[in-house]
């Protein structure tokens, strides 16, 4: 299982980076970033996975005494959980700036933003 997730995550990062570097439309760049973001999250969760173990939640099927043998590492999950929520905030911020840039210039093509070009 973790092989599948790791490979998918790596491929998603590559595709996202390629899209972010070759597209010219700012909206497209943000979409590519969010794809790469998903890939990174997938990799971090996949690293914590262990075969034939189950989710770190104790209930009738997983008693607290046998938790040591039955559950997987909960720490990467906690990290990714916060990372996803922050990711939405970052995406919203990027979109806000994109909207603001469009208001000023009237276009979202990055080749027309050359004030900082030397």
């Amino acid at each position: 299982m973790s092989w599948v997730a790791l490979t998918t995550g790596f491929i998603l990062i590559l595709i996202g980076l390629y899209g972010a570097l070759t597209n010219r439309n700012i909206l497209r760049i943000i979409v590519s970033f969010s794809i790469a973001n998903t890939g990174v999250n997938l990799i971090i969760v996949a690293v914590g996975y262990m075969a034939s173990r189950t989710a770190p939640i104790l209930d009738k099927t997983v008693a607290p005494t046998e938790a040591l043998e039955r559950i997987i590492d909960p720490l990467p999950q906690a990290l990714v959980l916060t990372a996803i929520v922050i990711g939405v905030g970052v995406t919203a911020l990027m979109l806000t700036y994109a909207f603001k840039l469009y208001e000023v210039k009237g276009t979202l093509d990055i080749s027309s933003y050359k004030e900082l070009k030397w």
Partner: protein
Amino acid sequence: MNNILIGIAILLAISMIGAAVVAIRVKRPAIAILAAGMISLFASILFLFLAAPDVAMTEAAIGSGLTTFLFFFVLGRVRGDEHD
């Protein structure tokens, strides 16, 4: 039994990669955004298969509506700039 889950995971992985290719190659930005939303929804099922239901729920709650909606709102505001 576990092989079935791995098979479904491979199916989901293929569809995610296909959707990612669609997202960066397709001409219409609306479809690119929809494909990104689809990637995040399928990633949530993959999280569930990786025994992380908390992360799966976060991704499902956020990826299903919120991100897609934010993108579409900005896209609707800059509609004149659709072609690229």
